[in-house]
């Protein structure tokens, strides 16, 4: 085990070039995880700024802060960014960092594939954002309904960037999911049976399966759209006998599981945080896991609930409404299990815990409005209104973001050896929580009051201006909290209180390592005999770092895969091919050359089997 002095590094002065090369060629799941999280936080900021632009535009009636075209680009990029470039990668990043640690593994199953996923996410995101500088960003909403997305109605290249940028990040997601599935199924330390895996690991496993099965549908939808836009086909054109509704089916067959793809790991995060800060094991582990798997399955049978207004036969609509409502059962099971984990516990209200509790409280609201929307006639009134906007922000912001922020406070000490400042953390929490409710609670009323979503402006005299103004103030409150969060992270990285190996008295395996963990994670196979490997059930306490270390017999030699530049090369090749499809085929040919060079280098590299 590394000594304490090494474990708490003050950033050393190394040549910036060697640091850069180290990070660009790393295959260490922890460094890759950090880069995922940093990239995702960056895009969270970008998506947030887009949200602020939207809110400024809507602060009052008939405002002209943004041209309606720019407004459409903002709302499209806000949605696309938050889902694909913020929520998914931040969870992939946390998963990358902590799944191997939590199951006692040394790395992910395919370290280079892991790096490939990271670089595809970064380069694909940049490709998508290149659209702003190439004639216009995509402007048809994040679910991009045809035929508004066809060449006739969206003539600039924005939609092509959207298609290809998301295809590149989509490859990243599938690569990452395959890696998670193999890692979780195949690389557990001997004692980590399936029914002992931390709930977060379970949720990452289910989410990975959802990605593997849901993304192809999006890819097909996008391929057909790309052919329509650039090769003269008419898969979505009513003129040739096709139907634009095909897009909606293909998109939502992906799109609804996608909601659970981002929300299930968030459930997992909360299921790790709440028990530790209640000093009690998770209540109803088995029920929670089954509920997760059940949600995963049901999520594939509900997609048409996004399409109640397109004219489905009533019986079909009713069936989809009913199956959507069934999801409320496993969700309720989870909610009650979290609450009863706290029941009779000894609750420490740290910032992480505050975020986790507010997640539970807010997700309930999102769930209840979701049930209302599942009943078809009510959906006819409320779909495509601000009620829906409120609903999915309560599930995605209240669900995903709050739990991710909680996880940041929970795991920052493990990742960097220093705690985030708790007092500023609480200020961050108050601003986020109050701002969140100020922004999104009024939107319920706006939806009931007939305000459709995605309108760039609205008339005076409808009674919408006051609530919209409140929402705008709320959005800036969140922004203020976010600024504090960023400053807190930057300052704590250098000046935060040293955390020690296990500052929260956690009991999952990641707390058995030093903070930050050494490159090889564990000196040997960590022994696991229960769901809480660090918990001494006789003495009812968490093991000390010294006791934990004594349990592990060090391996004689540790094999770590060497760094590799080839994932970056292959990712660059794929992205350039994608860019070539947008600009000219010549660029695509260049991309193919780089891609093949990368593949050859990848296969030939020594040190991998």
């Amino acid at each position, binding site marked *: 085990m590394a000594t304490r002095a090494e474990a708490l590094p003050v950033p050393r002065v190394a040549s910036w070039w060697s640091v850069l090369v180290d990070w660009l060629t790393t295959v260490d799941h922890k460094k890759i995880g950090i880069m995922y999280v940093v990239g995702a936080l960056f895009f969270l900021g970008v998506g947030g700024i887009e949200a602020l632009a939207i809110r400024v535009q809507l602060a009052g009636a008939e405002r002209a802060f943004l041209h309606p075209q720019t407004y459409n680009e903002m709302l499209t990029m806000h949605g696309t960014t938050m889902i694909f470039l913020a929520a998914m990668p931040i969870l992939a990043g946390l998963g990358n960092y902590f799944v191997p640690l939590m199951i006692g593994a040394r790395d992910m199953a395919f370290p280079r594939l892991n790096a490939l996923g990271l670089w595809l996410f970064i380069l694909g995101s940049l490709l998508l954002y290149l659209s702003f500088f190439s004639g216009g960003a995509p402007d048809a909403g994040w679910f991009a309904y045809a035929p508004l997305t066809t060449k006739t109605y969206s003539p600039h290249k924005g939609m092509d960037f959207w298609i290809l940028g998301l295809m590149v990040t989509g490859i990243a997601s*599938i690569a990452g999911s395959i890696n998670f*599935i193999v890692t979780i199924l*195949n690389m557990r330390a001997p004692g980590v049976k399936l029914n002992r895996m931390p709930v977060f690991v379970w949720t990452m496993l289910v989410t990975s399966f959802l990605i593997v099965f849901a993304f*192809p*549908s999006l890819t*097909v939808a996008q391929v057909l759209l790309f052919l329509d836009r650039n090769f*003269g086909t008419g*898969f979505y054109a009513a003129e040739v*006998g096709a139907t634009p509704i095909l897009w909606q089916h293909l998109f939502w067959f992906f799109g609804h599981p996608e909601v659970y793809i981002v929300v299930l790991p968030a459930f997992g995060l909360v299921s790790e945080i709440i028990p530790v800060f209640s000093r009690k094991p998770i209540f109803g582990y088995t029920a929670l896991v089954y509920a997760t798997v059940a949600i995963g399955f049901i999520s594939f049978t509900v997609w048409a609930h996004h399409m109640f207004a397109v004219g489905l036969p009533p019986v079909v609509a009713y069936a989809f409404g009913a199956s959507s409502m069934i999801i409320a059962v496993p969700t309720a099971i989870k909610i009650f299990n979290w609450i009863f984990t706290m029941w009779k516990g000894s609750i420490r209200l740290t910032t992480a815990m505050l975020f986790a509790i507010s997640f539970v409280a807010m997700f309930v609201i999102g769930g209840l409005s979701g049930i209302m929307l599942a009943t078809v006639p009510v959906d006819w009134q409320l779909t495509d209104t601000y009620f829906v906007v409120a609903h999915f922000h309560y599930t995605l912001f209240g669900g995903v973001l709050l739990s991710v922020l909680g996880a940041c406070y929970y795991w920052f000490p493990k990742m960097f050896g220093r705690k985030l400042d708790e007092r500023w953390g609480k200020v961050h929490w108050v601003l986020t929580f109050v701002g969140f409710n100020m922004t999104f609670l009024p939107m319920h009323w706006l939806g009931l009051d007939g305000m459709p979503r995605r309108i760039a402006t609205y008339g005076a005299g409808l009674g919408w201006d006051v609530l919209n103004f409140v929402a705008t103030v709320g959005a800036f409150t969140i922004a203020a909290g976010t600024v504090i969060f960023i400053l807190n992270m930057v300052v704590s990285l250098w000046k935060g209180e040293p955390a020690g190996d296990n500052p929260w008295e956690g009991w999952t395996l990641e707390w058995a390592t030093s903070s930050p963990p050494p490159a090889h994670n564990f000196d040997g196979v960590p022994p696991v005999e229960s769901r809480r490997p660090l918990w001494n059930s006789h003495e009812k306490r968490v093991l000390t770092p010294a006791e934990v270390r004594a349990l592990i017999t060090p391996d004689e030699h540790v094999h770590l895969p060497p760094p590799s530049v080839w994932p970056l090369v292959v990712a660059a090749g794929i992205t350039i091919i994608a860019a070539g499809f947008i600009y000219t085929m010549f660029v695509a040919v260049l991309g193919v050359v780089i891609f093949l060079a990368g593949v050859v280098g990848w296969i030939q590299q020594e040190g991998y*089997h």
Partner: protein
Amino acid sequence: MTAQVEKHGTTLGLDHRKLGFWTFLASEAVFFMTLIVVFIIYSGRATEGPGRELLNIPLTAFNTFVLLTSSLAMVLTIDAARRGNQRGLKFWLLMTILMGAFFVGVQVYEYRKLIHEGLTFTSNLFGMTFYTLTGFHGAHVTVGVLWLIATYIKALQGKFGPDNYIPLDVAGLYWHFVDLVWVFIFPIVYLIRW
């Protein structure tokens, strides 16, 4: 670390690469399933212009037979590798490649003939869905042939044997998958009247 050591070190006793590749194929299966569903949905709606009457069923049936036989050759390749039969390995791998290439060749011929007879990519819904579905399959076969050629070069260097046949196994998985997809596409596109 050799593949065999790795294999014993896994929780499920399955090689990582095979498990990972199975997962990948599951994703690919959904991809083709979606394309097939699109084809079926639009078959009923595409009534104007050149249609399925142009398809040469006997030729494609023969092509299907060739592709299925190539799967058998692939099985024999891996069997030879497991038994350390280098000559058999190279022979059957080459046969697999040749049959795969033959399949692609016939598909190119078929496309040219259809285009000549008026069924193009954009002529109607049938053209769009037909070329997209069979085209994506053809592209997969082509990638498979290239992959097998790369594997063949390694086989010539004697890199595969009873201790190291997992890469062949994985290539084989892909090849069988591509064949299996065609087993669905052939009746759905060529035989059934929707």
